[in-house]
């Protein structure tokens, strides 16, 4: 059996084990064991991938395997990875791992929470290893559904509203996406839904226009494409911490990943032609998200809007269609995944202590909880692209890559997107200044404690990832950009 399937099997086994778990201790034990195995597996995969690549293998996809499970439409369970999927799998494993530790004190219904959490993880991992469009879509839906329950049951605030809104918007978009996927299959005349097979059967350009719009839009909504991003602030604000982390950190990346793997790779001609329209939308989204974040007072809303800005930047870079900008997009997905997970984790920890997320109700917390405060500042710096942290590497690659596309119109949009680095600094520093620095605002907060060991573990893991990517980006960046070389070749 192909070892990539373990990425799906392990979460499924975790679900089975959770069913029979009897105590809270057992539940946590299963989660820690399972998520550690996933991290180990991801590391093993990365190591193997690099070894095989170094030995001169230039296949577009490695470790491939296929198993037909629905003969009439020739739908396969087909797996395989390239540099991009490897990176995204590693990210997902790290987020699931840290998410487990962040939810250490999860109550009530701990067991059920982790059940749905694992199902969500199954969908995410399955999505990243799949090469068959239908199976891909199946895993995509598997990842979306648990979201409704996780937010609706364990969330806070107006959780029912948020859960419903998130699910309906994402379901609506995946309906459009399904039409797009079926359109690609029937339009191309290929005999299976395997991506590499579809890539060899390019569709007529007129059909591409139509189905590119559908698929890009379908994936784009999950990637917070402006103006269809409003599910994200509400959803993130209401979701429990670990779910926010997994959702903003990984699930939103499904949109970016899907839009290039399906929309761009399979329909390059339409992508080239239609990208200006979507570029304008994403460009607006980048600046708009950042501006909207300035006005927010709820920590989760601030980060949610910042995510909108950064995820739009991912789509923006994908649409620029140069190898460097695509590399930048993946780096940004990776970097934003880590940073936003760190943010949500910290916000959850702070909220768990102060019981408020309004920055106007807090002040001077740096003195009370130096570890959390310093980590928040680090997260903030990474978010606004300070060198040494991952955000810088990703954003700079995107900007340089976007500028490589010689079109004047695209360049002006790039310059507009560059302004987000200043606006980003405004909202981050404002937030930090309001609730971490300054005099202590609420005497009650003086008695709060700093992070516990399991919280520290999660935070340190994420910061280590951010620092590694920010300080030694060469390997990862080359790995991603090599995959694009072959990917673009497949497309042509």
């Amino acid at each position: 059996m192909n070892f990539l399937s373990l990425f799906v099997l392990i979460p499924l086994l975790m679900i089975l084990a959770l069913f029979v778990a009897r105590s809270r201790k057992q539940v946590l034990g299963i989660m820690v064991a399972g998520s550690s195995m996933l991290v180990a597996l991801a590391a093993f995969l990365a190591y193997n991938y690099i070894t095989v690549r170094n030995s001169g293998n230039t296949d577009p996809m490695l470790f491939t395997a296929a198993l037909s499970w629905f003969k009439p439409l020739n739908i396969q369970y087909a797996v395989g990875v390239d540099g991009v999927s490897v990176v995204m799998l590693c990210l997902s494993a790290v987020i699931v791992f840290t998410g487990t530790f962040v939810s250490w004190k999860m109550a009530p219904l701990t067991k059920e929470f982790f059940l749905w959490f694992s199902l969500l993880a199954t969908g995410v991992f399955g999505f990243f290893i799949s090469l068959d469009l239908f199976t891909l879509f199946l895993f995509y839906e598997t990842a979306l559904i648990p979201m409704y329950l996780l937010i609706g049951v364990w969330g806070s605030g107006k959780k029912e509203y948020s859960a419903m809104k998130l699910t309906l918007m994402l379901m609506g978009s995946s309906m459009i996406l399904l039409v797009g996927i079926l359109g690609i299959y029937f339009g191309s005349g290929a005999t299976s839904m395997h991506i590499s097979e579809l890539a060899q059967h390019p569709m007529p350009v007129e059909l591409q226009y139509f189905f590119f719009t559908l698929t890009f839009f379908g994936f784009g909504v999950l990637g917070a494409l402006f103006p269809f991003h409003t599910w994200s602030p509400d959803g993130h604000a209401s979701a429990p911490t670990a779910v926010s982390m997994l959702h903003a950190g990984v699930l939103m990346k499904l949109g970016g990943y899907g839009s290039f793997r399906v929309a761009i790779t399979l329909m390059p001609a339409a992508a080239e032609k239609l990208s200006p329209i979507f570029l304008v939308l994403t460009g607006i989204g980048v600046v708009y998200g950042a501006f909207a974040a300035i006005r927010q007072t709820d920590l989760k809303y601030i980060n949610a809007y910042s995510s909108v800005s950064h995820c739009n930047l991912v789509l923006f870079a994908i649409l620029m269609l140069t190898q460097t900008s695509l590399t930048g997009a993946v780096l940004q997905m990776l970097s934003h995944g880590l940073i936003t997970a760190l943010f949500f984790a910290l916000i959850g920890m702070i909220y768990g202590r102060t019981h408020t997320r309004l920055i106007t109700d807090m002040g001077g917390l740096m003195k009370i909880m130096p570890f959390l405060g310093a980590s928040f500042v680090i997260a903030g710096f990474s978010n606004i692209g300070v060198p040494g942290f991952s955000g810088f590497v990703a954003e700079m690659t995107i900007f340089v890559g976007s500028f490589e596309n010689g079109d004047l119109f695209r360049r002006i949009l790039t310059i507009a997107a560059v302004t987000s680095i200043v606006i980003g600094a405004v909202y981050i520093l404002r937030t930090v200044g309001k609730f971490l620095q300054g005099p202590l605002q609420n005497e009650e907060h003086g008695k709060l404690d700093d992070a516990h060991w399991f919280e520290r573990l999660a935070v340190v893991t994420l910061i280590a990832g951010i620092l590694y990517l920010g300080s030694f980006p060469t390997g990862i960046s080359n790995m991603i950009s090599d995959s694009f070389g072959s990917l673009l070749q497949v497309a042509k």
Partner: protein
Amino acid sequence: MEYTLFVLLLPLASFVFLGLLSNKLSHKASGMIGTASLLMVALLSYFAAGEYFMTQKTGALFQTLMPLNLTWLNMGANLHIDMGILLDPISVMMLVVISTVSLMVHIYSLGYMKGEKGFQRYYAFLSLFTFSMMGLVLSTNIFQMYIFWELVGVSSYLLIGFYYTKPTAVAAAKKAFIVTRFADMFFLIGILVLSYYTQTFDFGTLTSGNSAVFQQAISTQFLGASALVWAMALIFVGGAGKSAMFPLHIWLPDAMEGPTPVSALIHAATMVVAGVYLVARLFPVYVLFTPEVLQGIAYVGAFTSMFAALIAIVQTDIKRVLAFSTISQIGFMMVALGVSKFEGHEGLGYMASMFHLFTHAMFKALLFLGAGSVIHAVHSNEMENMGGLRKQMPITHLTFLTACLAIAGIPPFSGFFSKDEILSATYLYNTGLGVWMTLVAGLTAFYMFRLYFSIFWGKEKQHAHPLHESPKSMTFPLIFLAIPTLLGGFIPFGQFVTADRAPYTIHMDLMVAGISVIIALVGILIARKLYQHPEKPVTVPSGLKGFHKAASHRFYIDEIYLFITKKILFNGVSRAFAWFDRHVVDGFINGLATATDWFSIRIRGFQSGEIQWYAWVFLFGTLLITALILFI
């Protein structure tokens, strides 16, 4: 000369060490670790400078060395960001300046920051700053410079906001970061444009003077100027932001909220000259390919120096006076670069600018540390709480006087020589500009001595506890820095640093020197007359009342910024965006939901629950379909 790598690694190691172990270490230990690592850095830098200037010369020209250059990040086919070390006369000169001032500040802080909460954090940040600044000057390519450029911005933010429980410090830190970041955005765009057309980030290629590199950038026109002009102008905006050129100067006076040694290190001697260094680094490009931008730089510098000098005259906070004087002096350096040509005597400005950068770093650091010593004793920044301190604090007084004489341009102090070269260069370029800068020099002498007399002369004020001289850890740096302030002018600077790398022998232009000294003396005398006995309040002549008011409000530039950022961007744009998001975009989505809801309520009547009604519908439906099939 690979050992120069340790100039970077030592402060970094000390930052990581102090940052991670800050809670475990005692104040004394962390201060010692930071200072010791800086001492080693300083010794290494001196050694490197000695070796470089002694040996690395082929023929008459200094070589550019690149002991280390590793690819850090690939970006496309040709572009890649490298991390390396570049040694040439200006970077080696900067190494000496930074390590000297930084070491002095480290020693000084042992006394000044004694007992402060977060002492370890303070030393960690100082190390971080030193690392970033060293990285900036040693950069081998423009993107590496940008990386460290951002890092110095961050360390400056951290250090200004060191007293993070004080709202003014937090606000000042935020302001400094955002304003410089705003300028950095232009820098980045400039880099993007430049690198796209030249397909390189490398300084070596860019400054080689090879016109083939810029062929495409020159031939591409955009809005009436070539792409190269745009790129170089945008890059200068970045430099102007860090170097507090008008109108991006507003962050620097507020940055004085940080601890005084930090102001001495970052906001007087090193970081704020990064913009000057940037222009000097790219000088061949400016002077050979975009002289129009260089001209603009000269005028921006000239305007800023006058503007800041006028404001400095009326400030009452001693650190603010020094801050505006810094802005004014950096204006001098910019002017000198702006008026310079590439070769020989025409290239005097470049040499003068670097010379002034060097001397200014020493005497301005000395001034700030002296001011810190005064503040340490008096516990106030305001001039009115000071007076007659020359008796209580003799060492501070003498060293401060030395620095004042240097900045005023009185021979034989170092400032005289460097300023004189700048003035000569401006006269060479344009007499009007020369006169203008000479006037600024006169104003400089006036406001510096206003400061000096107000602090050290006049009647002694009542204080809560008796005043005394600062501890040795603080007076030692003062004395140490007084040496280059006193003697620095005799360094044959033209032998080391020139635009075309060929040695240049400085000729004193007696005419220019004479005029500037006379004007400086006049300024000092007026200041003496007005402020030596400050118990007699100085009345502002009625004709100048309006000017006085405007200058004390810093010509309302801050208010304009506040209006733009607060009223327009924050309240206008941002609020509008947030409203738009909640009501229009989200409203549309909610509207869809509401419409679905409404529709479902409307058609709910069909599901009445009455079986017989269903049966009727069923019957008629069947009949209808039957009829349709039969008749159509």
